[in-house]
C-alpha cells in the first residue's frame, strides 16, 4: 500500500468530498493561496476556485457562525480554524448555537452538518493558548461529535465521514502528526464514528490514548515488553461517540486501565472514560484507574520545561509499573 502523510490524507479527504458533493466548501483564515497555516489546503484554491475555498477575515465567530448558517441552508461547510485553541473565541457559536440549534428549534427542522477542523496540541515551540487540547470542552456539549485521529489512514476516513455526517463535528489534528506517514489505500473509503482501534494487543494493562499520545503509549509498550509486561493500546479515534465496548472488553481481559491524553488532567476526556468504566466495568477492575494528562497549570513555553510537562512514554512506563506493583 502507498504511504502518505497525515496532512496529505486530510487534503485527499477534502478533495474527494468536494469532488463528490457540490455542497461541500471550505473556509477559514489563510486557506487560499497560502494553503492553510499547516499546509493542509495547499493547491485547493487552484483546483476548486475562490468560491469554494474561501479565505476569511480574522473572524472566528463569523467563520463558525457563517458555517453554521450555510449548513442550516443546506450546504456542507468545512471550517478551518488556524488553531483549535481558537475555539474559545467562538465557543458560543459552537456549543450554544451549532450544538443546540436543532433541538431548541424543534429538531429535525434544523440540523447543522458542519466540520470544524484544525491543529491542536503542542509542537516543539507551542505556547498557550495555541498549543492546548480543548477536546474535553466539546464532549460536554450536546450535539457535537469529537474526533481525534492519530494516523493518516484514520484522518482521511474519519474526515470523510465527518463531512457526510449531519452533526457538527470537531476534528482535532495534532500538531506533531501532520508530517507523519502511514499507509492509506488508493481508493475511496470512510470510517465509522464510535469504533476504536486496538493499536497493540496485550494482556496485562489497557492503555487508552488519543492522538499523539497513542505513539507515546506504543513506545512505552515496547519498553515494557522487554520487561515482560504486555500493554494493550486502544485508540478511541472518536471521543463522542465513544466505543465503550472495545474499552470494556479490554478491561475484562486486563483488569487494569490507564488513560493518557495531552490535555490537562482535571476534567479531561480521561475523567469521562474512567467514569464510564467505573459504571460499566467496575467488577473487572483489579486496580484503581490511572489518568495521565498535562498538569493543571498552563503549558510552559521553554522546551526545557515542556519535556517534563506532558505525559510521555517514560511516564506511561512508570505508571504501568506502579499500577502492577500496587
Amino acid at each position, binding site marked *: 500500500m502507498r504511504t502518505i502523510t497525515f496532512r496529505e490524507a486530510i487534503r485527499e479527504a477534502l478533495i474527494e468530498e468536494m469532488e463528490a458533493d457540490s455542497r461541500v*466548501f471550505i473556509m477559514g483564515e489563510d486557506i487560499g493561496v497560502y494553503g492553510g497555516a499547516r499546509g493542509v489546503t495547499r493547491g485547493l484554491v487552484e483546483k476548486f476556485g475562490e*468560491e*469554494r475555498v474561501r479565505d*476569511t*477575515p480574522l*473572524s472566528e*465567530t*463569523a467563520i*463558525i*457562525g*457563517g*458555517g*453554521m*448558517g*450555510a*449548513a*442550516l*441552508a*443546506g*450546504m456542507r*461547510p468545512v471550517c478551518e480554524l488556524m488553531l483549535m485553541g481558537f475555539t474559545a473565541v467562538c465557543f*458560543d*457559536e459552537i456549543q*450554544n*448555537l451549532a450544538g*443546540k*440549534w*436543532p*433541538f*431548541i*428549534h*424543534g*429538531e*429535525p*427542522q*434544523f*440540523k447543522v452538518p458542519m466540520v470544524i477542523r484544525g491543529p491542536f496540541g503542542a509542537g516543539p515551540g507551542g505556547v498557550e493558548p495555541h498549543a492546548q487540547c480543548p477536546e474535553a470542552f466539546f464532549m460536554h456539549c*450536546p*450535539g457535537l*461529535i469529537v474526533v481525534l485521529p492519530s494516523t493518516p489512514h484514520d484522518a482521511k476516513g474519519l474526515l470523510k465521514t465527518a463531512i457526510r455526517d*449531519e*452533526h457538527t463535528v470537531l476534528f482535532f489534528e495534532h500538531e506533531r502528526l501532520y508530517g507523519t506517514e502511514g499507509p492509506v489505500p488508493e481508493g475511496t473509503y470512510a470510517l465509522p*464514528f*464510535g469504533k476504536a482501534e486496538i493499536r497493540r494487543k496485550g494482556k496485562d494493562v489497557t492503555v487508552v490514548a488519543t492522538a499523539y499520545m497513542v505513539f507515546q503509549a506504543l513506545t512505552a509498550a515496547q519498553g515494557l515488553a522487554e520487561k515482560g509486561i504486555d500493554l494493550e493500546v486502544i485508540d478511541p479515534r472518536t471521543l*463522542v*461517540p465513544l466505543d465503550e465496548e472495545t474499552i470494556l472488553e479490554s478491561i475484562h481481559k486486563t483488569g487494569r486501565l490507564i488513560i493518557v491524553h495531552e490535555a490537562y488532567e482535571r476534567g479531561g476526556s480521561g475523567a469521562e472514560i474512567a467514569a464510564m468504566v467505573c459504571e460499566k466495568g467496575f467488577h473487572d477492575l483489579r486496580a484503581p484507574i490511572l489518568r495521565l494528562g498535562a498538569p493543571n497549570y498552563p503549558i510552559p513555553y521553554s522546551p526545557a520545561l515542556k519535556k517534563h510537562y506532558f505525559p510521555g512514554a517514560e511516564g506511561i512506563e512508570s505508571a504501568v509499573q506502579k499500577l502492577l506493583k500496587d
Partner: protein
Amino acid sequence: MEKELLTDLYEKMLLTRRFEERVVELFKQGMIPGAVHLGIGHEAFSVGAIAPLRKDDYLLISHRGFGHSIAKGIPPGRILAEYMGKATGCSRGLGGAHLADRTVGIAGVSGCQGGNHVIAPGLALASKMKGTDQVTACVFGDGTSNRGTFLEGINLAALWKLPVVFLCENNRYGFSVPIRRAMVNEDIADRAPSLGLPGVVVDGNDVIAVYEATDKAVERARSGEGPTLIEGKTYRWRGHTEWDPGTAYRDPQEVEEWKGKCPIKRMQRRLLEEKFIDSEGIEAMEREVTRQVEEAVQFAMNSKAPRPEDLESHIVYYDI
C-alpha cells in the same frame, strides 16, 4: 402606496398588538412558564421590515420576536403554543422564545445576543452559492449592536456582498441601560458606512417608512448588490420582560410621550384620511383580529403538552 398593502400592514400591526396584549394576560395567569419579551410599541418595525420579504427568504429574529414571526407567517396559535410549552408549538415546545418555522423561512433565534449577526451571512452565502435569489434578514436591537459579532458578521456580509438585510430595532434601551450610556454613536446606522454598506435611519414608528426602506434594501440584496443596515427608532412600552415593570430606569413621562406616538393609531389616521377605510371597516378589522387572537389562544390552550415519549424522535440526533 396601494390601499391593499397599507390596510394589510395595518391589520398585521393590529394583530400583533392584540396578540401581545393577550400574552400579557396569559402570562399573568401563569400560562406561560418562560420569559416573555413584548414588542408593544414596535409594531411598525416588526411588521414593516418583514412585509417586504418573500416566504422563502430567511429570517433570524430576536427574543422580542412575536411581531416578526406573525408578519413572516408562523400561525399565531403555534407561536403561543410554543410559549406555553405545548407539543403543537412551532418549535415543538422545546425552545420557548426560540421560534422557528422552516416553512416560512424563520431560521431561529440565537440565545446569546449577537449570534444572529454571524449566522445570517452564512445563510446568505448558501443562497449565493446555490444561485437562488433568497435574501436573509437579521433582526437585532440597539443593545446587541455592541456585540463583537456585529463587526464580524456585518464585515463578512459586506466583504462578500451577501444578500443580507440587517434590521436594527432601536428601542433606546438595552434592558435597563439607555443607549447614550452604551455607545457614543447617535445612530447605529452610522457604523455601517465604515464597514462598506449603506446605513439607513428610519422612523421606526412609521410603518410606511420602514416598509419602503426595507423593500429597497431587500431588492438591493436580491439583485446582488450586497447588504444594508436599517435602523428603526422606536420604543418599547413595556419592561424588558414581563417580570420587569420597566419603571426603575425610565421616566414615566417618557413612556407616555412614546405612547402618544403609537404606530397603530398613526396608521389608522392615515388610512382614514386617505379614505382607504372607514370607521366601520376599522371596527370590522378589530373584530377579525380579536377573533384570530382568540382562535390562537384556544388552539394553544387545547393543545397537549409534549410527553416524554414524544421527545424520543427529537433526541435521536443527540444520541451520539
